[in-house]
């Protein structure tokens, strides 16, 4: 996928293979600029324009890229929904939250205003908001951060989507509220069997919700596999470095192992392996060609020539 006007296009995501089945959660992990949010927007059909998307994008067997705009719009919200990092800015400040939830049913299911209002109250109750009838009339600024994210979730699940994309849904929240929201998402998934793409920079959070993990760096996937396997036995030096670098409550180290340097922007992606300039295991061959994804065992894959060798 490339972004920007034709004369100045940046390849923000390259050669990404994702597949996700119902009831499963894919955790997408990476630092800023790695393309994780852009991947989500591309799937939703919300990528900023102008852009060009190459390759294939299929949802429940339908080719999304071939779909006319209006069909794509009808799919959004109804079949695939998304929640965002900042529930404060992601909700319209001047519209009562009940209306914002209810309009999903008006638009996608042709509900009447009264039915939509009733459904909104039921949805607020479903996501664990006390006194839902009163809260439905509240404006976003009258709710706490946690409640606002619950409102976002209520909106997202209103039409029982088959896929929910959550982009850093707990990053702006306190830890105790974060735990509440993660619990809510897990419960909803258990009850509805929806698939989830959970994007986060926080490995701990991803570990708490994901079945599978994809680690991204500079617009490419560098490692994929079952969550617990990738997190406990990482194969790619970047994944391993990220995990090692986290301070852990379980044991304290005097000096944290670090990954030197800063995450690279896809605009200045170096040739070969994008992680090579920061990698401790780098050899000259790393800079020669983009390393392919190599299977390591039945389910884990990593894009690193040092691991494959």
């Amino acid at each position, binding site marked *: 996928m490339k972004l920007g006007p034709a004369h100045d296009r940046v390849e923000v995501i390259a050669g990404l293979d994702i597949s996700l089945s119902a009831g499963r959660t894919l955790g997408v992990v990476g630092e800023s600029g790695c393309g994780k949010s852009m991947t989500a927007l591309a799937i939703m059909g919300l990528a900023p324009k102008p852009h060009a998307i190459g390759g294939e994008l299929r949802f429940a067997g339908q080719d999304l890229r071939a779909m006319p705009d209006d069909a794509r719009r009808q799919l959004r919200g109804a079949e695939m929904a998304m929640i965002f990092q900042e529930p404060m800015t992601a909700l319209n400040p001047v519209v009562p939250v009940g209306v914002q939830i209810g309009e999903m049913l008006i638009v996608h299911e042709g509900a009447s205003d009264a039915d939509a209002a009733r459904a909104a109250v039921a949805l607020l109750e479903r996501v664990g908001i006390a006194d839902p009838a009163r809260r439905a009339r509240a404006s976003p600024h009258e709710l706490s951060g946690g409640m606002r994210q619950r409102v976002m979730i209520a909106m997202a699940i209103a039409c029982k989507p088959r896929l929910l994309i959550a982009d850093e849904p707990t990053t702006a929240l*306190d830890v105790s509220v974060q*735990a509440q929201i993660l619990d809510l998402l897990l419960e909803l998934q258990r009850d509805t069997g929806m698939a989830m793409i959970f994007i986060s920079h926080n490995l701990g959070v991803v570990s708490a919700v994901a079945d599978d993990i994809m680690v991204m760096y500079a617009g490419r996937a560098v490692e994929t596999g079952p969550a617990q396997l990738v997190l406990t036995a990482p194969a790619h030096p970047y994944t391993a470095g990220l995990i090692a*670098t986290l301070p852990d409550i379980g044991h304290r180290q005097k000096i944290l192992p670090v990954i030197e340097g800063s995450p690279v922007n896809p605009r200045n992606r170096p040739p070969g392996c994008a992680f090579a300039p920061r990698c401790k295991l780098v050899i000259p061959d790393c800079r020669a060609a983009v390393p392919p994804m190599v299977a390591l065992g039945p389910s884990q894959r990593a894009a690193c020539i040092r691991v494959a060798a």
Partner: protein
Amino acid sequence: MTALLEAIDLTVSFGDRAGWFRPGQQVQAVRAVSLALQPGEVLAVVGESGSGKTTLARALLGMVPIAGGTVRFDGCDTAAMTAAQTLAMRRVVQMVFQDPFGSLDPRLPVGAIIAEPLDIHRIGTKASRRERVAELLDLVGLSPDAAGRYPHQFSGGQRQRIAFARALAPGPRAIIADEPLSALDVSIQSQMLNLAAALRARLGLAYLIISHDLAAVHHVADRVATMYLGRIVEVASVDALFSTPAHPYTAALLAAVPRIGTGKRVPGDALGGDIPSPLAPPPGCAFHPRCPAATSLCATEAPALRALRAGHDVACHHPLGAA
């Protein structure tokens, strides 16, 4: 030992004054907090947003007016200090902010940003300041040619290093850092944590760290204070607080920290509810509506902060692990 910075019974309230036709509203953001930062120590204040931790830091620096209690710097009441003494205190206690994008003037070159505290406190000559800037850049791991460039040419992590260099410029004894890591990428956070530790070892700095990132706090702090709704509910050494938390709120916060490799979450054990509005704090212990161990006593009487054992204070009627 005289504390470097000490709050005694400190209360900070915000509010709009009453209008002609309207009563004023007062919010106590910090309620009767006593806390001391010893020279060379790393003290962390943790708590959820709205707990008053940022306001406490600002009140210690004299950046917000104090409604009650005293702040002492080196044993002197800051309210009674002369302008010169206040300036001297500002030199010795520096601040690093959360957002390295907003806290650096985009129109000044980095060298000028770092030299600004030197200019304010009239330290050194023009030439010696330039030298000092180069030395500071080296200290925080940036190359000396960074001085001529502008903040937007740097990444978030590098900007936080610049902010650090600026704070170090006048030779402080303490640095107050308000959520210094939360705007940074994961791989950059650990770089900053190591930098902070190295600078402390080298310069004997004390840190007051305001953070909600418990794992990072666990890594750097000597002592930790937990705040809830403007009050300190627990203070202890980092090991005691993390291994045997006595306040149910501290325990709940620790339990909520997601950790790697512990498998998928089993829903159900999250602490319920939200932090209450400081406009209408619950009676008794402010935490009792969310507390799993609350009794009728908790609903009526606010527990005072008392020593559970040496160096471990808790404000709870039923502290954990004290049968």
